[in-house]
């Protein structure tokens, strides 16, 4: 039981960290589909720098730097150059997949996975006893918990959090109240970039201690989904991420245990189907409350 819980937490942590970034971005009114790409950039940079220098701190710092640059480019494209956020977000994910593979070949000579000895600190050191599996949890899982609490406090208890949320709910009202929407979004996207760097670090260094081509495999999109399924609130996002971790853990389990009764793919579909259901339910509730449905996509031609 404890094993399964730890397995789920480990699977959930990268998604959780990225989803917290996506939460802040979405609160500011940007649907962030670039989480996948940012995670991949973070994972690659961390592993590449630790392989070359051996310093985890330096690697993390550089990964955060890289993700900040990508996030600023994202911000420039969508707010200064008025590009469509969804297309640019998807494009960032696609370009990051190409760019990390390209960099892998250019720096390390082949497309093969690169391994590193660097490991994340694991605060609980329990060698035996019933709680022993908890010792496998890395520091970043605790960081995710801390960031969730921080996000909750910032969004509900600070002036900046309120301003951030207004940007997403009603841009016009925010501007009338003197909030600099464009600048707020820059900060929000940078926060998302940093969160994704942490997510990539956890993904690359927690278990596999390596980077391989396109290793995120859709976890960034799961993070985006966790934001929506969690109702764009910190507690909801945390719950949704842990649920995805659970689906992942159960998927692994059912492959071993429930052999052939329920195909593993159908368990993996659950997060997506739940989100579709949740989106439909939210739309119905919003309509009852008299909130207008989303406007049509514009500025495309």
């Amino acid at each position, binding site marked *: 039981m404890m094993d399964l819980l730890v397995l789920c937490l480990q699977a959930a942590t990268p998604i959780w960290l990225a989803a917290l970034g996506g939460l802040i971005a979405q609160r500011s009114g940007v*649907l962030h*589909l670039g989480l996948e790409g940012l995670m991949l950039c973070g994972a690659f940079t961390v592993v590449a720098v630790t392989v070359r220098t051996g310093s985890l701190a330096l690697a993390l710092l550089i990964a955060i730097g890289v993700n900040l640059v990508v996030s600023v480019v994202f911000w420039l*494209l969508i707010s*200064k*150059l*008025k*590009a*469509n956020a*969804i*297309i*640019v977000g*998807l*494009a*960032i994910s*696609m*370009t990051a*997949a*190409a*760019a990390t*593979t*390209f960099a892998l*070949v*250019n720096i390390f000579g082949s*497309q093969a996975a690169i391994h590193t000895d660097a490991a994340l600190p694991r605060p609980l050191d329990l060698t035996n006893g019933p709680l022993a599996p908890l010792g496998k949890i890395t520091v970043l899982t605790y960081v995710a918990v801390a960031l969730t609490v921080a996000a909750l406090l910032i969004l509900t208890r600070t002036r900046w959090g309120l301003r951030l949320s207004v940007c997403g709910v009603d841009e016009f009202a925010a501007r009338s109240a003197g909030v600099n929407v464009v600048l707020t979004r820059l900060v929000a996207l940078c926060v998302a970039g940093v969160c994704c760097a942490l997510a990539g670090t956890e993904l690359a260094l927690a278990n596999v201690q390596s980077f391989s081509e396109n290793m995120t495999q*859709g976890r960034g*999109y799961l993070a985006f*989904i966790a934001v*929506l399924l969690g109702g764009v609130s910190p507690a909801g996002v945390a719950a949704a991420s842990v649920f995805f971790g659970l689906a992942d853990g159960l998927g692994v389990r059912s492959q071993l245990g429930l052999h052939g009764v329920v*195909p593993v*793919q*159908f368990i*993996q*579909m659950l997060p*997506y*189907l739940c*989100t*579709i259901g949740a*989106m*439909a339910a*939210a*739309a*119905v509730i*919003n*309509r009852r409350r008299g909130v207008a*449905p*989303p406007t*049509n*996509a*514009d*500025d*495309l*031609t």
Partner: protein
Amino acid sequence: MIAGRARRVLRPLSVVVIAIALVLLVYGLLGYSVTAVVDGVLAGSVTSLPAAEQTLRWTVPLLLMGLGIAVAFRAGYFNVGAQGQMYVGAMASLVVGLWGDGRAPVLVVPLAFVAAVLAGAVWSLAAGLLRLLLGADEVVTSLMLNFVAVLLLQWATSGPLKSRAGTGQAATTESIDAAYRISSSTGTSVSIFLICAAVVAATAILVDWTRTGLEISLVGRNPVMARWQGVNSTGVGLLVFAFSGGCAGLAGAVETFGPAGSLRSGFSPQVGFMAVVVALVGGLGAFGVLLAAVFFGALRAASLYLPVVTDLPQSGIDLLSGAIALLITVTGIPVVRRRQRRRRAPSVDGASDVPDRLVAQHREVVTR
């Protein structure tokens, strides 16, 4: 009028040129020989007959899906679920193809294509109905349905449809009867081109020459005004969702009965999103999409060929597609926009983008 049309052509063209320049600069800085790369791209996509054939083979799915997406985008519906719709269509056609099992091709093949189009349309309408009846954001739901379709294909290729002849590891389905194939593995044949020509013509006619096409554009430009004009916007919405899903399903069937012959888990992973880029680069018009599809088809063909002749990895060419995707929705550099705003003070952002042709057509409707 000419200015509006020129802008519609010039903008995507300049984005492509800028992206190419940027990527070539990156190659140059990293020490690749730029001329060798350009030569390699041309050799891998156009200058020989097999290369041109490869280009066309990769053009076909982009074209079919791009046309459907263009129509949906025209109506303002952001259907990004083409990937999943293609997978579902491919699976439906494969099931019919395997069921055929020696029956006359003239019966089985059309049936398989109808099944594929219907499956794609239904998959797309799932997102469409949620949007039109409940108001659920179609970007999210169609994206979700992509992931569901990917897993469905994974299940089908490793479970019920799995090839018994295979080594047991590869997730590949049984192959359909060779008599049903509409092309060899090169993926080019007269029947495939006829299908493409028919869909291009149908899209062009629908968009530019019919009342429905005008209604689609109206709904996209201004849904409120469209409703005042008596346009059945729910009907138009369902139509474009079904059309784009049907096109993607058709692309899946062409892939199955053409070059592939069987299905592999996660085949052509990027093609759904690339089709979105194709639709945008093509300016959401039938002939523009055709040109854009050939361009991206050539890139795809070149990216498979290039690692053979130069030391540039395949991901190097994918960078170019990525750069174009990043830039294609940019609607103006700030300096230019500010000048425009001063000139036409009362216009709202984006309204100035309405093509003159549309305005003229719209006046016609009003007076009618």
